[in-house]
């Protein structure tokens, strides 16, 4: 893929601060902050940077929150300050559309994660084909990957490859996977995908496993790793890029990133802008443990406070009801139903 500079890089890191990180900031990152972060990412040699609403194209909604600015404004701001870094975005079919993808291209986006739930790859053919037609670098992004078997996930990845995806991502949206889960899935994918198709891993740190999982992925054959500097992302955050790069250096694997610049960036830019400390805490840990979509965290905290129900109880109930990414409306619905059930119990 000509658009990504692979020199000295065995692993292509894609930073998520300005997309997944938007979840952790309730979509309230300013254009100024975007410029500062994008410029630091470029200068630290991170080859790819994802930018946009946390839910990607079409994300501005009552369901997912309204960002401070439009995606177009964010892309324009970031485009101005990046030189070598490639800008990407996220498209979840059913939410984002091909019209929005074409708009993204016009605003400098050159790579896209086309994301579906890990069993629903066949909702993505239009969008993957459209992205390829735009000559973008296209990844098929299989979310909540722990909910499909290694064999099942490999089939889904093969489908996305057949639509034109050049990389297939195993996406641990709930931060639920263990290194052995990751290794099995990477290996199965490797068996069915063509030699030119890359494998990626996108982790969440809800159980503190994001770096170990990312390293396991690389050792099993993945070449693309998503992370975010300072771990700014949904739930307990994404794989912290600075720590991941340090581990890679110790293992002798080239990432092409400047470790000290990344450390400084985490300390001086990302940590000060966090509204809450993005870390393994009670709520994020229970999501990882119960296998709940990481983005539900802040919504569950808000709804829990509104109705006086512990967020952990809501999250566990959502996990039990097998809710998946995009069903944020079911958080309030679930809380309301829990209240009804509890008041009935009290009445009895």
């Amino acid at each position, binding site marked *: 893929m000509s658009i990504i500079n692979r020199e000295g890089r065995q692993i292509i890191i894609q930073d998520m601060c300005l997309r997944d990180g938007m979840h952790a900031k309730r979509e309230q990152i300013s254009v100024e902050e975007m410029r500062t972060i994008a410029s630091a990412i470029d200068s630290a040699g991170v080859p790819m940077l994802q930018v946009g609403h946390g839910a990607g194209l079409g994300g501005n*909604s009552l369901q997912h929150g309204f960002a401070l600015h439009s995606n177009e404004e964010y892309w324009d701001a970031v485009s101005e300050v990046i030189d070598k870094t490639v800008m990407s975005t996220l498209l979840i079919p059913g939410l984002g559309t091909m019209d929005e993808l074409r708009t993204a291209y016009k605003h400098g986006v050159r790579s896209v994660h086309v994301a579906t739930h890990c069993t629903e790859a066949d909702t993505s053919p239009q969008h993957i084909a459209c992205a390829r037609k735009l000559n973008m670098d296209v990844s098929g992004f299989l979310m909540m990957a722990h909910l499909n078997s290694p064999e099942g996930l490999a089939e889904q990845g093969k489908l996305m490859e057949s639509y034109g995806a050049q990389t297939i991502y195993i996406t641990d949206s709930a931060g639920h996977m263990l290194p052995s889960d990751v290794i099995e899935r990477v290996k199965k994918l490797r068996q069915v995908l063509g030699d030119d198709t890359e494998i990626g891993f996108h982790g969440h740190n809800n159980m503190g496993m994001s770096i170990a999982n990312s390293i396991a992925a690389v050792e099993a054959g993945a070449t693309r790793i998503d992370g975010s500097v300072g771990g700014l992302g949904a739930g307990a955050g994404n794989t912290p890029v600075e720590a991941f790069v340090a581990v890679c250096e110790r293992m002798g694997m080239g990432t092409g990133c400047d470790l000290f610049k990344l450390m400084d960036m985490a300390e001086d830019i990302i940590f000060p802008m966090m509204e809450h400390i993005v870390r393994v805490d009670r709520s994020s840990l229970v999501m990882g443990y119960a296998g709940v979509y990481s983005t539900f965290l802040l919504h569950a905290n808000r709804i829990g406070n509104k109705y006086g129900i512990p967020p952990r109880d809501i999250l566990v109930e959502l996990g039990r009801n097998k809710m998946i990414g995009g069903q944020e409306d079911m958080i309030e*619905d679930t809380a309301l139903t829990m209240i009804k059930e509890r008041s009935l119990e009290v009445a009895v």
Partner: protein
Amino acid sequence: MAKIKCALIGSGNIGTDLIYKIQRSEFLDPVWMVGIDRESEGLKRAAEMGLKTTAEGIDGLLPHIENDGVQIAFDATSAYVHAENSRKLNELGVLVIDLTPAAIGPLCVPPINLKEHAGNTMNVNMISCAGQATIPIVSAVASIQSVDYAEIIASLASKSIGPGTRANLDEFTYTTSNAICKVGGARRGKALAIINPADPPMIMRNTIYCLTDDEPDQRKITESILSMVGEVQKYVPGYKLVNGPVFDGRKVAVFMEVAGLGDYLPTYAGNLDIMTASACRTAEMIAQEMIAGRVELKAEVVA
């Protein structure tokens, strides 16, 4: 009483479920099922249920329209072929109920605007399953006070979504968003679809958010929503208010569930039912007008 003879185009989930709905109708009689794959489950089932079938697509049906007296056709194929199907059928004087997102005819949600369309058009569009499940609620709010923005989220069981819908999610999004405004009465509209693979499959859920221009009149809006739910229940018995309306500033949130009748797919596939039941109700209303002699379909001269 003479029934109006109908043809079903498309032998997927929707077309097959329609057979059951139409066979129960007092006013409609399903006589033809059109597919493109002789081995398809839908065509086989249609034949077992006594319909004539063809695997030659729309052109396999056209020579039989006159002899078999087909007057209404339901098109459950795809947005891409609908316009051509509709043109061919209209030329022979057959009224078309469009269950694809093509939306070339007026958009119809039975309890809101069916009466306007009965007898006035040769093509009626049913929007989408999510549209049928949510737009009545948007309209119920908009009938009380002006709605600046309405957003709907439809959660559908993976097993209830056929390959056609999966490959064309954008059309679903555009058509439904547009109908939230045109039929629902909101100034701006947005539709989101989530496909959930949980096993056992989850019943179709729909959340409707409306942002009113002024502070919502809670009592009037609640009454209006409850009355609308009753209207929809007349043809979709499993249409149910689960939670809400919840009022939060200018935001009105309503949480619905649609259980199906379990005709072709099990009851979780409320999305299938509300689509086919709405189409069936629309056709029945037009059929009643035809039987009463108030409407006569004429072959359209299409330039």
